[in-house]
């Protein structure tokens, strides 16, 4: 970073790309130099993914030029990009689960002996050397099945390096990683950078940008709008350029006196997943369930809602015992769950917005056994405008919306049930800054109206900003119950890593 090389490894100028009637990219520009980690920032829908896919040879741009090492190039297919030394590490790696790490890395180009047999010894040795050089303790012969997402990303990185890639594009690699896993990834990125690899790093977490990157490109509305050295920027100046407007109060914490107990969980256990989970959420209160990914937080939420089974324990909603095991029962009792994976669990992407919204309240829309399409669309429009949904029509398929707007549809379909208890799992995962602020505002408004909110979140700023109390889980158990005034990053992380929090056990 001190000695800025003269010519970029890769330069993209004026790239545009349309899908159907959507102009995904209007003016994509990027210059990547060897030996730098470069942050690509922007709200969802700003065109980052499209730009990445153009660099990866997945999409052919409608216009624009791509120059690599001073030579203009056209990628017709992903293999062209790989040949040019560009590799993409996606958020969710796509590996063959039944094959070993080495087999995955050398898929389709295994070293062969004279009889055409695969030289496993050589393949495994090369792979092991690469894994060691990345500083990870994985075995080349290990099957990919059962590896964490973080480990699978490492395998993808090793695969890219074995192909002599010197441009690595990481598309939101940290979104699904725990803290230590993020640290390990950063260490790997730092190693590669000193080995003169150019890394393009996409993330929604600004603290990671300051930790890891040297330069940034900010995109907005399909165009690259700002280039800078990371050290010249701060949090607010980046956010302002991403959204193109001022963000006033980011976490609108409402001052509400908690009321009756809305949700009460007692000694909930499921063998091997979580045990002895007890807590209360009062009306008008936001309780955050924090901890590392895999600590069992989402599983507790799904068990309360009846999607996952439980072995023992009780749940009471507004003082009434809830029969566990069926989502329909939980919905009738006044529980709503906004799930963590909105594309898989939250929405039927091919179905119109209106029909997604009505799915939870079909029985309430029925007159003489028939559903009124008009009432259905009115319901969707009503929740759409309440939640500031940006959509041309409620007849559009939910899949055509951006992540933030999809999240609003999921929120709308659950608020339409008029729940007493709202469980919201990763409320702002993968959504842009503007939509995040709107989701926070919605949560604050709901709490004012007396909603009991259980919020699962991996983002500490969000937990500290929104929660009245923070419960921390570690390996299936609650290890801390911290009131808002005492909550800080250190205490939450300590509990998440399994150190019991002496001050809070008696409270729980």
């Amino acid at each position, binding site marked *: 970073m001190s000695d800025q090389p003269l010519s970029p490894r890769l330069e993209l100028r004026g790239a545009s790309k*349309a899908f159907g009637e959507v*102009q995904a990219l209007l003016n994509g520009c990027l210059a990547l130099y060897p030996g730098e980690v470069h942050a690509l920032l922007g709200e969802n829908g700003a065109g980052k993914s499209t730009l990445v896919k153009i660099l990866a040879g997945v999409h052919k741009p409608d216009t624009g030029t791509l120059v690599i090492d001073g030579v203009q190039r056209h990628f017709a297919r992903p293999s062209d990009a790989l040949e040019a030394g560009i590799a993409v590490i996606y958020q969710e790696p796509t590996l063959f689960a039944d094959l070993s790490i080495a087999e995955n890395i050398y898929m389709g180009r295994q070293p062969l002996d004279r009889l055409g047999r695969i030289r496993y010894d050589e393949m495994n040795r090369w792979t092991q050397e690469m894994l060691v050089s990345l500083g990870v303790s994985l075995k080349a012969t290990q099957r990919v099945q059962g590896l964490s997402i973080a480990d699978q990303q490492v395998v993808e990185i090793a695969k890219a390096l074995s192909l002599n890639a010197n441009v690595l594009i990481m598309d939101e690699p940290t979104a699904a990683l725990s803290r230590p896993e993020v640290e390990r990834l950063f260490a790997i990125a730092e190693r590669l950078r000193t080995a003169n690899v150019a890394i393009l790093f996409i993330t929604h977490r600004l603290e990671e940008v300051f930790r890891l990157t040297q330069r940034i490109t900010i995109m907005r509305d399909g165009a690259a709008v700002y280039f800078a050295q990371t050290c010249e920027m701060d949090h607010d100046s980046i956010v302002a350029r991403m959204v193109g407007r001022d963000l006033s109060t980011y976490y609108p914490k409402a001052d509400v006196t908690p009321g009756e107990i809305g949700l009460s969980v007692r000694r909930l256990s499921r063998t091997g997943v979580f045990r002895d989970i007890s807590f209360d959420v009062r009306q008008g209160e936001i309780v955050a369930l924090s901890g590392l990914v895999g600590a069992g937080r989402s599983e507790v939420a799904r068990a309360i809602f009846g999607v996952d089974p439980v072995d023992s324990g009780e749940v009471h909603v507004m003082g009434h015992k809830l029969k566990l095991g069926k989502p329909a029962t939980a919905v009738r009792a006044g529980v709503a769950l906004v*799930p963590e994976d909105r594309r898989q669990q939250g929405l*039927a992407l*091919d179905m119109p917005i209106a*029909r997604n919204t009505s799915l939870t309240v079909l029985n309430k829309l029925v007159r003489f*056994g*028939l559903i009124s399409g008009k009432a259905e669309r009115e319901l969707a429009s009503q929740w759409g405008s309440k939640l500031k949904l940006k959509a041309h029509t409620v007849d559009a398929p939910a899949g055509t919306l951006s992540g933030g707007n999809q999240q609003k549809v999921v929120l709308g379909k659950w608020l339409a049930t008029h729940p007493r208890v709202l469980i919201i799992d990763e409320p702002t995962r993968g959504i842009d800054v503007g939509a995040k602020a709107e989701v926070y505002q919605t949560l604050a408004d709901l709490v004012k109206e007396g909603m009991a909110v259980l919020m699962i979140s991996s983002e500490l700023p969000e937990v500290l900003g929104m929660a009245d109390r923070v419960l921390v889980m570690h390996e299936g158990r609650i290890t801390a119950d911290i009131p808002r005034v005492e909550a800080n990053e250190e205490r939450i992380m300590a509990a998440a890593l399994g150190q019991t929090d002496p001050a809070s056990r008696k409270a729980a």
Partner: protein
Amino acid sequence: MATPPKLNLRFTWEAMLCVVLVMSLGLGRGLSAEFLGTANISNLLADFTEIALMALPMTLIIVAAEIDLSVASVMGMSSALMGVLWHMGLPMPLVVVLVLAAGVLAGLFNGLVIVRLGLPSLAITIGTLAMFRGFSYLLLGDQAIADFPANWTTFGISTVGESFLPQPFILVIIAAIGFTVLLQSTAFGRSLYAIGSNQTAAHFSGVDVARTKIKLFVLSGFMSALAGIIYTLRFSSARGDNGEGFELSVVAAVLFGGVSIFGGKGSLVGVLLSLLIIGVLKNALTLYDVSSEVLTIVTGLLLLSSVLVPNIAERLRAARIKRVMAAKAVAAR
């Protein structure tokens, strides 16, 4: 947010089916002078009674991203059972009730195995296709029972008053209306689309996926048994091999009607139009003395076109929009 409902004149599969129907009617008229005669129209309608009765629940099942390939076997088993029970000396109304109950049980079996074991309906119903057909041969062997009471068999072949409408076809009309309402405007129907387009999300939304699927297969079993009864009365013959191979025609009619094999998309209006087209084409070609082998080829071609035509149309549309948008992007800079 609120947009006024506007008239949508874009290309739809249903609109295309209407055009094809008119063309097939024209073809029929061109090939044979008898085609539009009362007797022939009556034949034409009577001939697809069973296929239609089974295609209605099949549409719902395919919308929910499942399939029931055992329908024709349940139909055959019902026909055989009907013969056996009648020969045992039971009164006809009781026979009908018992046969329908057997159909419900067959559907319940399919549904329970698929839901409880979490296995794909394609595999399970291929198994029960063979199994139920086997039962029907066990019941009747290769014999046929033909001595059903005349007042029942005349129902199978007479028309409503002096009109061209065959009496069994009344059942098709009632069922078609019932199923259309069920699929398009009830909570049950809505949840089928949700299950077909994303089963996990439907489950997370409080839809009882397991119970819904069991209901679907029960419905299918019931309608297949009804088809078996009608078929037996129309031909006044209960046989173990009745309806053999009909499942292919049923699935073909549903897919040609625009229902997506991947679930989540399609309407009964399309399926009803597709049934009419297939009925008209078969009838017209038969009048023209075209062999049954050729008819099978025509069915196959319809099935292929139901997959290929929307695909090609979508590619053409995408290519056109892409050109327009590229021009706009250049202009916008």
